[in-house]
């Protein structure tokens, strides 16, 4: 726990004025889920991903998604070795502990689905052979807001492979002033010491699953799920997988806050990040984030 709060402090020192997003990102890592950051370019998505990899002591790779990227470029290929007369598997960049999938919505649906499948299964099947991905395996994908030309928006069915979706947003004037004065952060980034390593991270992830969820809390989450399935607010209700995702994220959040049991406020803290991208608002003039928040404001704790 010491190490994770150290990591939190380090990240906060590097990325100014975004404590909530950093906390959510750490929660997402601790819950063992993948993170989707949706934002305009240049607000620090890559920095965040890089910094996370650094403080967590993870092996990090970045793939810039473009429309001509092929699945094999990411997953790896089987090469024929004429001297030995057989095929040999060349792993792609997906075989890393932290993969930054930049602008995931620029890639073709084929590539997207290959990546998302790997994210879900945590293994890659090529030519009938299965190759396990390293542990931990964690994807941070970024995507530009909808409406940009030449993009393939991720299908809804695949969006819920991401545990959370967050957006960083523009920094506050003070933070931006500090940012401008401090100059290039790359130096600081490379100087970032690792607060923990992959083994410790796995142990923490394991510990997060042990956080107590009482039956009353499960009832509360269930009430949220059921309320989302009523037709007036959303096109489709939340799936059971979304419910499990909420619980996993709430556990990690509770652990970050140094508690051994989950409280409704933990659920509320992570709910919008976990659920907004899985929902589509039916109400005109209200996006799914607002609608999810509205759900939280209407479902009683008991």
């Amino acid at each position: 726990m010491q190490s994770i709060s150290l990591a939190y402090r380090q990240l906060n020192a590097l990325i100014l004025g975004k404590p909530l997003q950093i906390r959510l990102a750490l929660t997402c890592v601790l819950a063992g889920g993948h993170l989707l950051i949706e934002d305009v370019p240049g607000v620090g998505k890559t920095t965040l991903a890089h910094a996370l990899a650094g403080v967590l002591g993870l092996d990090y790779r970045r793939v810039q998604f473009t429309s001509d990227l092929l699945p094999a470029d990411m997953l790896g290929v089987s090469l024929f070795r004429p001297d030995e007369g057989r095929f040999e598997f060349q792993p792609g960049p997906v075989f890393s502990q932290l993969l930054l999938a930049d602008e995931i919505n620029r890639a073709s649906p084929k590539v997207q689905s290959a990546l998302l499948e790997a994210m879900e299964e945590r293994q890659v099947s090529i030519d009938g052979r299965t190759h396990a991905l390293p542990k931990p395996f964690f994807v941070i994908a970024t995507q530009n807001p909808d409406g940009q030309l030449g993009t393939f928006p991720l299908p809804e069915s695949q969006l819920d492979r991401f545990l959370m979706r967050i957006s960083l947003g523009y920094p506050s004037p003070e933070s931006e002033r500090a940012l401008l004065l401090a100059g290039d952060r790359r130096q600081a980034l490379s100087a970032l010491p690792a607060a923990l390593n992959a083994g410790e991270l796995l142990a923490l992830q394991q510990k997060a699953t042990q956080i107590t969820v009482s039956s009353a809390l499960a009832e509360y989450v269930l009430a949220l799920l059921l309320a989302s399935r009523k037709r007036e607010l959303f096109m489709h209700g939340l799936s059971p997988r979304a419910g499990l995702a909420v619980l996993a994220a709430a556990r990690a959040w509770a652990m970050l806050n140094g508690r051994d049991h989950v409280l409704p406020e933990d659920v509320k803290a992570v709910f919008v990040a976990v659920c907004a991208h899985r929902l589509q608002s039916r109400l005109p003039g209200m996006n799914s984030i607002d609608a999810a928040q509205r759900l939280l404001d209407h479902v009683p704790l008991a």
Partner: protein
Amino acid sequence: MRSEPRLAHFAVLAALALTVLPLFLQLPPWVPLLFALQLGGRAWLAWQDRQLPHRVWLLLAMIVPVLLLWLSLRTLVGREGGVALLLLLTGFKAFETVTLRDWRVLLGLGFFLAATPLLFDQSLPSALWLLLSLFVLTWAMVLLAGVDSAASPRAAALALLYAMPLMLLLFVAMPRLPGPLWSMPTMDQRATSGLSDSLAPGSIGQMIPSREPAFTAQFRGRQPVREQLYWRVMVFDRFDGARWTAGSVPDSGAALASGAAGELSYSITATPFKGALPVLEHAVWAGEGVQQVAAQLLRRIDARNEARLRYDVRSVAQAAYPAALSAEQRDHYLQLPAANLRTRQQGEFFGRQFRDEAGRLVALRAWLQQQGLRYTLSPPLLQGDVVDDFLFSSRQGFCEHFASAFATLARAAGLPARIVVGFQGGEFNTGGQFWLVRSSDAHAWTEVWLQGHWQRVDPTALVAPSRVVSEVGELVPEAQAVVPVLGRRPPAWWRSAHAQWQRAGFVWQQWVVDYDARRQQSLFQRLGLGRVGVGSVMTVLLLGGVVLVLPLLLWLLWRRPPPRSYPVRGWQLLVLRLQQAGVAAQASDTPAQLRDKAKGLAPSLQQQLARLLADWQQWRYAEGATDADPRWRGWWWQVRHFRPPRLAASGFSASGKATMD
């Protein structure tokens, strides 16, 4: 937790024992006793976990009691014999029970045995006993089905309760057959309380101390006065010097014409006394099921049926009725044996003295009154010529002594006379509006034929006039109502409670015990359903089902939402209390949010709220949290007493503004 099978086995045995307990009063006591011993033995074997005896031994052991039964009852069928045999066989069956199936067979026999005491007694207490037996049998059934022993009494009671409306419906609607399927069994002597078929000194006297109800009568319209209540049952006209019996001379008395003024219309519920039924003197019309026979008597149409019966009669309360007497009949009613010489001489003296028959009767009555006779229930034992001994020596006697003496005198004086046995008076139950006539009201009086009429002469009334106008208990201490054990005259509350009990018994008798084919028919007609038939029975079953059974079924099948627990109720109440205080609290807020919102409250209230919320959060979400935690009760009480006062208007308007934004 599931119940232990052995407990269920003990319950079955106990239920059987309890069920047949009333049979101790009805059967030779050794039969129920043996049965109880058999059950006890079986229970002991179960307790000790011992092997059951081999079937061959059981068969051999069964022969002796069955033989004994045959010797003592001379029958193995019919009511007594059949019930006793069934009891013995059930007792032996208990030694054959190994599997659950066996125990269930035994329990089924227990349900059948529950019907056997009813063959002997259908009073209210035995109905209550039946209820108890049913409960214990059902309880044993529930235990056999494996229900938790702690929950079993409730389950049994509920099952019986749920079954009750349907049972009532079937009871009312299922068609009754007017007669028995096969010949009725003969009733034993004890079953009919009271009158015997002859009159000898002491034969009525032995009935007087018994306060056993004999029959009930309910009058419609005009009510009679006490002096009119001469309930005629039997007529005795043959005298052998000590005992009066019924002779075989046919009586050609003309029936009284109906429609006279002052008619009393009533119904009586009675058990026949040797086929004869009580009727108020003198009947003018007899309803269904009964007929008027010679000597103004009433008999059941199916004379051999000794079962209790309810019948309608109309009477004109008067002391005489017209009848022609042939010479032969006149001789019969004047017949006297050679005994009782002094009495005969006295009578003959009056016969010579008074030529006018009416004057002779007046003189006889006057003479009897002057003899200084005393009315007592315990007269000295009479010797030899009983009438002489009574009139001229002991001078103490009871109604049968007076009647017998007067009839002898009258016959000796040349007046045709006979003895009527029945009841006189009764106890009016104000609550139930009916007359209850007891064994102690048994009475004997004389009838003298005078100028074409049979004229009632009650010699007892001549000697002790109060006998007729008041209850027999006023005169004879032995016939008084007493409090059991204490033996004192009952206080007023006791008598009123007793009257209430009697009333309940009467209603019970009238509506349950006497609910037969005829009564069912009249009920159906009153409901406008016409005759009891397939159609009308179906209508009653359907209508009754919709009214009585359907709601029960719906209630049983309705799936109730689970009751809200203390933490849920408390949370909602807490939010409500805060809202009432003007805090913009929502049930969807977390405890931390509520604390923030309640910043406007007084610090002590804030502390109280913070503690309540901390407890709620801890007990509800920490490890091992459960809504069944006993601490919730106390917490709920604290919430109920948490009543923050309404915040000042400024705070309220601030929150109001916030919502407007």
